[in-house]
């Protein structure tokens, strides 16, 4: 109908003008100028100018631009119409890039792309990008599993599709960077993602699954996080921002409680005594205790108050008010042809136990239009850091400070020192656990990172249709880690200490270089303007060629037998050995994608990505991943003022993950014994038939925006709702084979996974007046991944005693916990239908606290077969945001995170049952009519550290992630020089509501980004409660 109208137009008038932005007065490039009620229009040029021929009967022009408010203007006979457009930060109108390859108006995007603005990122004072994203991304599960400096959050974007790591691809301004995590002691990592500084980040975009990540091909299946750095805008005045933040950190202690009573033998005065009746006390020379006699039999009860002095080891172990200082200076601006953004930042973060992290970042982003339509941009990040917190905070109770601090009885003084001020190695001479303060004295860990990330972007626009873009990036880091165990032969406790007692220096040097080269060409045509076809169709064709190369080189030298006296170098080690590991990976491929948009109403695109890889050799065929998507904006056909956005969209895509380097080659592994090397066939056979893991995703979404009212209250609500489903085929994992063949396992495309989930985001303008502004937002995520198929149909065993997941089983979720269960009824049978308790023996058992107990031994009875006992996957997680602004000076923002239905295996608690230290031992139970805090009952639940359902707990929590109050005092300073002067006070993790009995329900997971080691609290390092004071100056 609209089209036929054009035939009626006869006489025309030419209108010209300039469109500028109200915010900075700068010309708006590419703004749309359309005759109202038609699709006839044009776009402003590079100087913000436009020329439009309109029929004489046209009355109104509509000016619009992404991020700016639409404006309707009466022509009223004018031929020159200059317009100023105001900023409209809170509409859906913005540009997204990630997953599309072409900057696209969000209204015309069919896939889910979550973006987080600088303002949102910096609201929570965070030291890293991943930390700032917690709770912000609907659909994702981003979980901070350790409070130690330099650690990275666990990131799961839309379910699990590979079992190696869930780490997504990370891009900076379109270029892939390293996302490695280097070991910093066992169980701790030094994260390359955590290297990046937040102060120069303008925006982060996240695409979560294959439907969006297809364009990244055989590497993109875990999703993509793209970081956009700040850059100057042409003509912009110099903007200087200085930010300083000081915070105090204290470890969260949750609900962890220790027993107040004991059951040991005592003397007449009530002091604890050993088996020979001698009072237990530390030997003044060694600190070793003569251990208390704990007696034997079923009737011992934990009911004696301590006469001995007792100590709170958490008070003794955790440093109070560990300080973090962050300072950054960012200068952004532009001259005629050159724009620039320079950043300098410094972070100094103390661990709440030992050591600190110091990091310096220098960033520069400089662009220049060298000749018309040809621009070159260079972005640089220089990073240097030193982390001395590693090595002592891991998942076992020998090397881990937190484990040995918590896992000793309260009558032992953790800070005990001998007459010379030397800490004890441990209180129990038969234990190989190490007192943390002893570790601090005899162990030094130092990790240094030096890193350069350099990107070059050249962009050439040929005419108005073709845009050729070339990007090259190189990310090189060097990671030097020294783990130094001092010679302890001179300590007061010969033979005891951190092994090897005579000292060892391990120096690890990693050099990794990631290169990425992308050539892309985008051709855009408008059928009306370019082909004079009277249809409002825009065509976007994208062709890209992408090459990536990773070079990894690790050298490790171990020097054993170190002198007590310095210098402590490898040169002075009694024996030194060295090993190295070299990995090279090259992949290249091309992408073809074609998109058609019909005005603003709808559109679709189809394309594919095809990849070659060095994992498959030069003779291999490429792997091809197709994609397609479509959207339809119902708002364009609905005549409503209430609904300003209602878009239905759907997308399908495939992406992959390649096998690890060289895992398809049958090679011999080398080892060293004595002074010679040897070769052997690895017990897990390599598999030349390994293929790329393939994930296929389909998502359907609804984007909405509703004008609720014209009043100041509840004016607008907007957001999106997405349902996604994905299948991963041939996920690579090791499966068992009969050991008698000579091999113990085979690495193969073993597992198919099936996931689905829902993500929802909602933002609401609650109040919007001149003096008060309140915005509310929420993000919702729900997703579950099931094991659909295992190649040989048999369970895959992960391990016992420390890994609560224990198995991967067909038909069960990834992340399910398997283990034994206490018998719950006297007639319970096993899977073969046999009774656990013979009918003849029934009189010896009864059910206590829901568990079958032997009334003679008072011990809880267990099944002998492993069953599913829990699941680490939350039923859903949600975040709530409230942002208030009073009189434009005072801002209050808060973020509340809610994780519901996740279960955790509290193995820390289980360990505390071993030595009867947990507060549960004070609890009385009634067995066979007698009541008491029976030690035998409680300790039987320990079950020799076997994973069992008793220690599965609900780890749901509601956490006040952030509460911050800012006040801008620049209004009170009459200076034209100072544009902003904001003082912020904020608190992170101020409260947590949870029934979880450990330190921190969020800090569960023994291995970063390992989907199979989630929800396990094994001496997990808790997050911090932080109080921050910030100062933000803007000139």
């Amino acid at each position: 109908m609209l089209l036929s109208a054009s035939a009626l137009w006869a006489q025309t008038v030419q209108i010209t003008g300039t469109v500028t932005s109200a915010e900075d007065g700068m010309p708006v490039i590419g703004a749309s100028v359309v005759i109202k009620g038609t699709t006839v229009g044009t776009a402003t040029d590079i100087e913000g100018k436009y020329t439009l021929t309109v029929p004489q009967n046209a009355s109104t022009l509509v000016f619009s631009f992404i991020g700016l408010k639409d404006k309707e203007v009466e022509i009223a006979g004018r031929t020159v119409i200059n317009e100023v457009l105001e900023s409209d930060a809170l509409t859906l109108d913005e540009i997204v890039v990630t997953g599309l390859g072409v900057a696209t108006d969000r209204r015309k995007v069919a896939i889910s792309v979550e973006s987080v603005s600088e303002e949102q990122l910096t609201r929570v004072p965070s030291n890293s990008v991943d930390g700032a994203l917690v709770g912000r991304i609907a659909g994702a599960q981003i979980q901070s599993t350790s409070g130690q400096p330099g650690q990275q959050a666990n990131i799961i974007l839309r379910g699990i599709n590979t079992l190696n790591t869930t780490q997504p691809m990370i891009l900076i301004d379109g270029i892939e960077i390293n996302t490695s995590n280097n070991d910093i002691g066992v169980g701790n990592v030094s994260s390359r993602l955590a290297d990046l500084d937040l102060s120069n980040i303008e925006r982060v975009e996240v695409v979560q699954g294959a439907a969006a990540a297809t364009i990244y091909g055989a590497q993109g299946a875990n999703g993509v996080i793209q970081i956009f750095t700040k850059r100057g805008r042409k003509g912009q005045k110099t903007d200087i921002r200085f930010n300083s933040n000081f915070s105090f950190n204290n470890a969260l202690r949750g609900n962890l409680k220790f027993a107040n009573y004991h059951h040991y033998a005592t003397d007449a005065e009530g002091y604890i005594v050993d088996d020979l009746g001698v009072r237990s006390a530390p030997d003044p020379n060694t600190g070793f205790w003569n251990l208390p006699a704990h007696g034997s039999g079923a009737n011992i009860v934990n009911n004696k108050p301590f006469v001995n002095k007792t100590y709170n080891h958490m008070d003794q172990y955790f440093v109070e008010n560990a300080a973090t200082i962050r300072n950054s200076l960012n200068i952004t601006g532009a001259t005629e042809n050159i724009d620039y953004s320079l950043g300098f930042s410094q972070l100094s973060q103390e661990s709440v136990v030992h050591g600190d992290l110091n990091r310096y970042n220098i960033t520069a982003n400089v662009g220049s239009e060298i000749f018309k339509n040809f621009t070159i941009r260079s972005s640089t990040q220089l990073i240097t850091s030193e982390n001395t917190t590693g090595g002592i905070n891991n998942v076992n109770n020998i090397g881990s400070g937190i484990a040995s601090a918590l896992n000793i009885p309260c009558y032992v003084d953790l800070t005990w020192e001998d007459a010379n001020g030397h800490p004890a190695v441990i209180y129990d001479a038969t234990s190989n656990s190490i007192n943390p303060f002893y570790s601090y004295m005899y162990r030094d860990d130092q990790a240094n990172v030096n890193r350069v990330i350099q990107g070059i972007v050249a962009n050439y626009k040929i005419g108005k249709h073709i845009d050729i873009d070339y990007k090259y990036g190189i990310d090189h880091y060097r990671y030097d880690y020294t783990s130094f165990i001092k010679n302890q032969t001179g300590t007061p406790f010969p033979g005891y200490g951190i092994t090897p007692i005579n000292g060892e220096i391990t120096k690890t040097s990693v050099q990794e270089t990631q290169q990425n080269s992308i050539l892309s060409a985008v051709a855009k045509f408008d059928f009306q303007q370019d082909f004079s076809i009277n249809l409002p169709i825009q065509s976007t064709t994208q062709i890209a060629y992408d090459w990536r190369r990773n070079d990894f080189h690790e050298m490790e030298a171990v020097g054993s037998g170190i002198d007590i006296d310095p210098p402590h170098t490898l040169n002075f080690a009694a024996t030194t050995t060295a090993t190295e590991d070299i990995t090279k990976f090259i992949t290249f491929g091309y992408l073809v994608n074609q998109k058609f948009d019909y005005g603003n109403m709808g559109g679709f695109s189809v394309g594919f990505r095809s990849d070659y890889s060095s994992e498959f050799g030069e003779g291999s065929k490429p792997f091809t991943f197709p994609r397609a998507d479509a959207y339809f904006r119902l708002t364009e056909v609905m005549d409503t003022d209430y609904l300003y956005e209602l878009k239905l969209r759907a997308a399908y895509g495939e992406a992959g993950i390649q096998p690890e380097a060289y895992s398809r080659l049958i090679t011999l592994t080398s080892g060293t014994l004595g002074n010679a090397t040897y070769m052997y066939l690895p017990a897990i056979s390599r598999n030349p038939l390994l293929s790329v893991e393939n994930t296929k995703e389909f998502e359907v979404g609804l984007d909405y925006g509703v004008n609720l009212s014209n009043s100041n209250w509840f004016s607008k609500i907007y957001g999106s709702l997405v349902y996604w489903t994905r299948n991963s085929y041939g996920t690579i994992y090791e499966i068992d084979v009969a050991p008698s063949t000579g091999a113990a396992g085979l690495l193969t495309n073993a597992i198919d996974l099936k996931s689905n989930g829902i993500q929802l985001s909602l933002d609401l303008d609650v109040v919007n007046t001149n003096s008060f502004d309140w915005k509310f937002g929420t993000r919702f995520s729900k997703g579950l991944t099931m094991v659909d198929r295992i190649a040989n149909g048999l369970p895959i065993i992960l391990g016992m005693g420390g890994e609560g997941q224990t198995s991967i089983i067909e038909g069960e979720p990834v992340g399910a916990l398997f283990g034994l269960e206490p018998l719950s009824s006297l007639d319970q049978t096993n899977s073969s239908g046999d009774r656990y308790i013979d009918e003849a023996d029934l009189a010896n058992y009864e059910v206590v606290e829901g568990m079958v107990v032997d009334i003679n031994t008072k011990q809880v009875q267990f099944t002998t077969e492993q069953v599913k006992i829990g699941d680490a996957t939350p039923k859903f997680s949600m975040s709530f945001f409230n942002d208030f602004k009073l009189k434009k000076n005072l801002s209050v923002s808060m973020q509340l995170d809610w994780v519901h239905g996740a279960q955790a295996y509290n193995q820390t608690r289980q360990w505390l049952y071993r030595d009867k230290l947990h507060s549960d031992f004070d609890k009385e139970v009634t067995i066979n009519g007698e009541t008491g805090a029976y030690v035998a009952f409680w300790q039987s639940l320990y079950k020799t550290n076997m994973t069992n359902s008793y220690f599965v707990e609900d780890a749901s929590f509601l956490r006040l992630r952030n509460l911050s109050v800012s006040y801008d005092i620049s209004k009170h300073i009459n200076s034209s020089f100072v544009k902003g002067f904001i003082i912020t006070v904020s608190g992170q993790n101020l409260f947590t509501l949870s029934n979880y009995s450990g330190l921190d329900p969020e800090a569960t997971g023994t291995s970063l980004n390992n989907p199979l080691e989630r929800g396990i609290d094994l001496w997990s390092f808790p997050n911090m409660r932080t109080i921050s004071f910030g100062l933000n100056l803007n000139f």
Partner: protein
Amino acid sequence: MKKIIVFIGLSIALLACKKESLELINPNEPGMESLTTEDGIRKASYGIYNSLSAVQSTSSWYYYIWFTQWIHNVMGDATVSHVGNYGIRWANQTAQIIRPDGSTVTPPVGGKQHEELNNRNTRDWGSDNVQAHEWFPAYSLIGHCNVLLDVIDDVNFKGYEDIVSVKKKTYMAWSYWWKGFAYSRLGSIYKQGVINNTYGEQASYVSQEELINEAERNFKSAIELLNTIDEGDATYLQIMSNLIPSHFQTGNGGVITPSMFIRNINTYLARNILVNKYAADLTAAELTEVENYSNNGVTQGDLIFTVRSAASNCLVYETAWSGYRLNLAWERVSERLIQDFRPGDNRLTRNFYEGTLQVNPGQRGFQYSTRWLAQSVDDGGEFMSYTAGAVEIPLACSYEENQLMLAEVKIRRGEVDAGLAHIDNVRTYQNAGLTDLSGAGLTQEEALEELRSERRVGLFMKNVAFYDARRWGVLKPLSQGGGRQDAIVVFEGGVPEVCTIEYDYKEWFDVPANETDFNALPASSASSANPSNIPIY
């Protein structure tokens, strides 16, 4: 200018994408073809130690030297372990202790040893399945040797024909020896096993006896080859010096000559006959066979296969084996070992002392109670040290074991004094400081008791504690005449009592589920491995 810049950019972008750049080579590891060079076969032959060091399955690690020594120690009640790690506490869970007053002490947790071990014989118990610990390393070793024997004809040895021949024979003898060793270990603990001569292939089950026969076949193949090599052959000695790790070439370890190698094998052949049946059931013919092998077995001064730790690049982790852990909570010297020392035995005072009292540790049972600690090598002991390399244990057989086999044959045959002379040899060799037994007028029964105690004491940490406990019938239930009547057990307050211990341990292990899940047992034998029929105690 503009076009040039654009062109250069395009060229750089496209140049990188040559398919040749995808050529795949692992710079860290050699391919299978490397086995056919002389260096390659040397390194791969040296690689047999990897199977003994640490075999990593998909879910667990299996440390042969540490785990098997440990399990055999505790199941032979030479040491005790109450720790749950690797399921070890269940391996020495005694059925009951009968105190002098007639009261019985049963395990505070769990049931009898064989039930606890069977309950854990499923894959999901990982390395807590005690019955899997010896299976993985042994078959890894066999698989590795199968590959070595498979490629030996393709190896491009350098030198004249006779030198090439010695090289080939030496490497083949090496592989046959280790296959014989592995089948011996398997056949001495598992009821059934698999004989597999091709890497990667799956075979069906055979009996324990057939495993021992396969061990003998391999041992004899090795002897046959070694017989053709001159004692001082420089090529052989050069190869052997590369195959025995440098830090083992001290004490009783070193470059074993062809004749020593044969004697080591003969002692093992004797052991295989002796330890795999009840002592009472040994036939005269078997005794003669044992005697014949032992007469040609390890002599005093012969070098044997040994293990020592090292600060790095070691077969055992420096701190993870009995030689390090004997005094830690992990493994402690058993009261029942100490009580087997004769009064005045220097070896007791040299090697053990009363130290930190361990009573009913972790409330897991009194069988784990002990007063004893091992004296460090640094202080004149032999079995324990925190210093790398200080402790030596035999990997296979020893001179002492060979002597005591001769003693046993002779005493059982009635040649009591001749037999006791071999016990005296051992005591003298180990500097026990005891008076000679030979000629002291001992009865056969008394001599056998001396033999029993001497094997406990003289062969401590020499791989036979469990075999001996089994063949003497100690592991059988009391009702079948098993157990130990005069066992010292320490109770509260460190008070020792003379008790009766009923061990009732598994005498033979079942095939681990790690195998049976993929290589099903014949239906007739499957029932014994089914753990689900056993009720909880």
